[in-house]
């Protein structure tokens, strides 16, 4: 596709359930990032993948959060035992070159998660 694609666009779940969010980066982009954006706030870094290197997980807020990426393609962010404070928009971004070579990250439209 032409841009970063995320699914689902909206997800409503009950507290304690697990959710999976998917990101399809732009073809050829080696770097992939996940960010979280709470309502009316800036973006919080979660995790970064670059090629086949070990991911940078330093932004994951708890061990309920995990992410995988297969090669340079699709990534899945999994949140286990969701809590109400997990409600946010989860944004995925990709770039051809990683930071700090370029800060031009291409973002998807996000997956809005609501935990009831």
């Amino acid at each position, binding site marked *: 596709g032409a841009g970063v694609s995320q699914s689902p666009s909206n997800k409503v779940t009950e507290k304690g359930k697990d959710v999976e969010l998917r990101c399809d980066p732009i073809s050829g982009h080696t770097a992939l990032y996940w960010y979280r954006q709470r309502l*009316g*706030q*800036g973006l919080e*870094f979660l995790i*970064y993948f670059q090629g086949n290197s070990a991911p*940078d997980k330093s932004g994951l807020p708890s061990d309920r959060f995990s992410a995988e990426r297969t090669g340079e393609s699709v990534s899945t962010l999994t949140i286990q035992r969701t809590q109400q404070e997990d409600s946010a928009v989860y944004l995925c971004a990709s770039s051809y070159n990683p930071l700090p070579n370029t800060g*031009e*990250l291409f*973002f998807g439209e996000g997956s809005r998660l609501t935990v009831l």
Partner: protein
Amino acid sequence: GESVGLHLPTLSVQEGDNSIINCAYSNSASDYFIWYKQESGKGPQFIIDIRSNMDKRQGQRVTVLLNKTVKHLSLQIAATQPGDSAVYFCAENRAGNMLTFGGGTRLMVKP
């Protein structure tokens, strides 16, 4: 500017006027700065970047100014248009893989 929960600082300008959006960054070790624009319901979109060895950089209708002495970044938009209405975020990179985003400023353009 700083954001407080849902109450983003808002800049309201008349169409055709110039806009200046300000950002204070936190870490003197940051050496790369980026401005993003986020329209409602969409992901952020890259506008312009600047590295710490520069004070000013110009793009199409936009200029970014960096003052390292006071750790201040600004985005100037010339001849602001209704399509410029959005939330604007500054972001800093301190080397490595992470961008640290500010809280955002809402720009509203009055026709």
